[in-house]
Structures are given as C-alpha cells and as structure tokens.
C-alpha cells in the first residue's frame, strides 16, 4: 500500500511536470525555439503570485487572473522585441540569448527577494484529503493540480487543432515563408505562441508556489523536468507531455521511496533509459 501511495503521488506530481513541459513543447513546435529561461520564468511567475496575493489579498488560484495575462504580455513582448531577432538557421543566438535571460531573471529575483525560500499559502485546501481506502488517500491539492494539467492540455490541443489561431500556429510551424504569402505575420504569431507559453507557465508557477517552498535558484531544475517530460512523451505531442510528466513523476517517487537521495537521480535515469531505448519518446508527433 505504501508503494501504491508513492506511485499515486508520483502520477499527480506528473501533472505539474506536464505543465512545465507543455509551455516548452508549444514554442518548440511553433518556432523551433528552446527557451533555456523557461524554468526561471516559472519561478518568476511564482514570485509574481506571491506579490499579487500579498498586495491584493487574493487567493493563489484567483491571482492567476492577474498573473496569467501579465506573463502572456511579458512573453509577447519578449518574443517580439528580443527573441524574434535571434531566430534563423544558426542555433547559437536563441540558445545563448535565452541562457543570458536565465542568468538575468535568476539574479534579478535574488536581488529583489533574497535567497530565502518562500511559500504561497492556499489555506485549508493544502491539507484536505480524499480517503480512497483506509490506508490510501489522495490530497485535494495534488488532484486539482493534475486535473488542471489535463484540462490545460486538452484546451491547448483544441486550440491547436480547432481554431484559427491554431491553424496559424501550425501553418507557421510548417513553413514560415509561405504563411507570409497568405497574410499571416509570422513575427506576430511567434509573439502569440510565446505569450501562450508563458500563460501556461504562470499556472505552473502558481502550483509550484503552493505545493512547496521555492527560491530563485530553482528554475534550471524545472526546465530540466519539463524537458525530460517532453522527450519521454515524444516531441510534438501535447498529450505525450502529460504521459512524460507522469513517467518522470513516478520514477522520482519510486527513487525517493528507495532512498531520499535517489529521487532526482531516478527521474534522470528514467529519462536516459528512454533516450537509450526509444529516443523518439513514447508518443512521437501525431498528425491530427
């Protein structure tokens, strides 16, 4: 029962990892950009949530009404004024510019908020549980987190394959030059994609902040978790990122159960094993 419990917790944490991964996967899909600052942006969103909840007296989830549009605007601006200039055949500029951005965000947060770890209080929901059997119960918060991840990925999937925006995203991804001939401004589309990615990041940031302590140095590890979930799930498949997140979460939970020092290592080893055995991931890109 102990093991079942660990695995269940791992599955639910997987939802959070899928949120990290979805934002990463989205921008890679649309503009082949890998954002090294992705994890630091998650942490930035967590700190914004801290400021907003304290300043406006809102609950953490309600604070998303402020943070999600704010992060989306930051994303759009970042893409239009900075990252669009780096896109091209050469791999180095986008990679190194987002790396520089990561350093700036991390140290900026350090300067403003100090290295002390913080946490967002969500009230009674934090400790509420649903008993499944006498020995097994699941926390309400992890469950909500997982369900939000599922809904979010469903919504992104619908957006990509059912709406005009999604069409523009996919068309731009297929051929940047041709979409311009049919009146799509690819720079604007890239901006929208980054805005959407950071809106997803803001949700991930709030859940990160409610779930446990956070501090300015946590970003890179979040980037790595998201990246591992993307690769395990299979590039270019949004539902795959959910599966990847769950695999990663379960691997970490099992590792932690064996020895607390093995939690992160087990997750990385699961990723490397997938890379060795099935480098295209479990669910590579599907055409819908």
């Amino acid at each position, binding site marked *: 029962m102990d093991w079942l419990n660990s695995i269940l917790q791992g599955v639910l944490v997987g939802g959070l990892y899928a949120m990290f991964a979805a934002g990463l996967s989205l921008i890679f899909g649309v503009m082949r*950009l*890998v954002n*090294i600052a992705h994890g630091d942006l998650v942490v930035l969103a967590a700190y914004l949530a801290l400021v907003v909840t304290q300043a406006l007296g809102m609950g953490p989830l309600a604070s998303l009404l402020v943070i999600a549009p704010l992060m989306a605007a930051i994303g759009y601006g970042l893409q239009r004024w*900075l990252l669009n*200039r*780096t896109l091209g055949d*050469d*791999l*180095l*500029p*986008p*990679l*190194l*510019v987002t*790396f*520089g*951005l*990561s*350093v*700036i965000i*991390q*140290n*900026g947060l*350090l*300067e403003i908020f100090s290295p002390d770890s913080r946490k967002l209080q969500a009230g009674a929901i934090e400790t509420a549980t649903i008993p499944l059997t006498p020995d097994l119960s699941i926390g309400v918060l992890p469950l909500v987190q997982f369900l939000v991840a599922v809904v979010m990925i469903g919504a992104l999937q619908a957006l990509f394959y059912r709406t005009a925006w999604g069409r523009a995203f996919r068309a731009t991804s297929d051929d940047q030059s041709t979409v311009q001939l049919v009146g799509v401004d690819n720079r604007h589309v890239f901006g929208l994609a980054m805005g959407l990615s950071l809106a997803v990041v803001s949700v991930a940031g709030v859940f990160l902040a409610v779930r446990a302590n956070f501090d300015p140095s946590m970003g*890179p*590890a979040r*980037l*790595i978790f998201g*990246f*591992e979930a993307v*690769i395990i799930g299979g590039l270019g498949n949004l539902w795959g990122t959910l599966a990847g997140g769950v695999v990663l979460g379960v691997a970490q939970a099992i590792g932690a159960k064996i020895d607390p*020092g093995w939690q*992160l*290592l087990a997750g*990385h*080893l699961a*990723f*490397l094993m997938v*890379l*060795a055995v099935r*480098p295209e991931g479990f669910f590579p890109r599907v055409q819908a």
Partner: protein
Amino acid sequence: MSGAFTLTRGTGVSRLVAIGAFAALAGLACAPLWAQASSLNLLTQIFAYVALATMWNLLAGFSGLVSVGQQAYVGIGGYALFALTIFWGLHPLAALVVAGVIGGLIAIPVAGLLFRLRGAYFAIGSWVVAEVFRLLASQISALGGGSGTSLPARIVTGMADGRQAREFMIYWTGLALVVVVIGLTIALLRSRWGLALRAIHHNELAARSNGVEVTRIKLLVYAVAGFGTAMAGALIFLQKLRISPDAAFSVNDWTAFVIFMAVIGGIGRIEGPIIGAVVFFFLRQTLSDLGSLYLMMLGLVAIVIMLRAPRGVAGWLADRFGFEPAPLERRLVHAKSNPESKPEPSHV
C-alpha cells in the same frame, strides 16, 4: 604559367602573432621570477578558464555541438584527481593527466546517448547528464558525499618541496595545460578532420553525402573536449584543494562564465576564448563586489553581443582589420605578388 599560385595558410600578421605568442609564452613561463604568489594564483585561474572556453568553443563554435553541460567534465576531472591521489596514491600531476583520459573515455558512452538529441535539445540533454554526475558524486561517501572533502595535507605537501615550489608547479601546469589544449585544438582543426568539421558546419547533409563520417568526427571532438575539460577541472580543484558536488558540477561557474567568455571573445575563433577570458577576469576583478547585479550585467552584455556582434571581439577584429592571428583556412596566393598585398582570399 603553372606554379604561379601557391597555397598558403600563414599571413604576415599570423607570423607576427606566432612570434608574439612565443615571446608571451616565454614571459609567462618566467612569471614565477617576477610575479607575486597572488598574481600566479590569478593567472592559473585564467589559464584554466582559457582551457575550458577553448574546449567549449571547439564544440559549439566549430562543431555545432552546443553544450550547457560541460561542468560534467570539470566535476569528473576534479573528482578523478581526488580519487586517484587519495585512494591510489598517484602524484597529482600524473593524476591530472589520467583524469583527462578518464574524462575523454566517459565522453564516449555519454555521446552515444546525447547524439540522439538534435540542436538545442542536445544542449539541455548535456545539462541532464551533468546533473546525473553531480548526484552520483554526492553518493560517494568515501569522498564526503554531498558535503565534499579536502585534499589531505600529506598529498598537498608531498607534491613538491615547500609551499613555493608547489605554487610554481601548479602555475606551470596551468600554463602547460593552455598550450596543450590550444595546440590540440589548432592541430585538430587544421587536420583533415578539421576540414570535415568545417564541411559539416556549412551543410551537414552535403558533407554526409560526400562521405564525411559526421557522427564519428563529432564523437572525436566531443571526446577531445571531455579530455581537455576534465584536465582543466583537475587543475582547478588541485588549486582549490577542496571539492564538493555543488562546486564541481556548478553550471554557473563552469558553463555560464565559459559561454560568456566565448561569446565576448568570439565564437568559432581560436583567439576568441583568450580575449574573452581576459575581459571576463578584468570585469570580475573590478565589479564582482556587486554580487548578483554583476551577474545580471554579464547576462545582459552576452545578450547584446549575441544580437549586435555575434562574432565577438575577435570576429570584429577580423572583419574590420583583417586581423587573423591563427588562420585555419588555406588561401590561394599569387606566387609573384607579395602575399601581404591582400590577395583575393579563396577559402578552402
């Protein structure tokens, strides 16, 4: 008239620079005669960083393998040095070379995994590998686990006769390391593999279809970088005398700063990392009191350079003044004309 053209690599400038480099090297080799211990210490740190940045540049600038995980090899080198000297009683200098070999050997299976990832995903994958090694290192209880360990006094004192001799020895090792790493890089890039790398860099598909064994060459380069980086790591921790997983596998210290140097100095140029390291240490000596503001500034400078002058200081010198201190390409020069009179360069 046949034979009117000759193929040459050197230019007037490059010959002058080569003479200057030898003079500088001779001066640096004599530094223990004129410099204080603190200056030798600083110079050794600069040497280690020049070696690291040269190896990163070989990967990213010449081979298209952008890694943000080279701290893996710094850590491996450092830990190998500690293990070899503490458990097997090797002399630190012998251990340093063996540590390099270990780094090169470990790079081979790692490449087997990482080469499955393309482009930017390779970069993050290399970071995961570095994390794995960091976590593994913190499981080695004989070397202090997560909190690390110091190099025992008997090893430190047994290295050389007295403190000063030891400091000189570490300094000369650093200087030798820079010479070996830069020499190895130039030799590699001027060999047929270097030519193949150039072809891959311009168009991988075309290179492949012309019979270039792309994967094998990238593997060779990755292993060489592992070798050089691990030796630099061993030197760094021989100088620090203390190692811990967080220090040995730090992404900030061994990758972010190194990338900064390469970007400032000029990616894809031999002299780039040297210029970059000098600029970096100048900034560090003057501004590092600012703490995180200083790091934010470094990030900002790297972004601006990447957008405005992606070829860095060395690239700017080459474009603006034709300053090519270490040319890797051969040019066709009219035998009758003076090579200095700027012939049409034909890049081979």
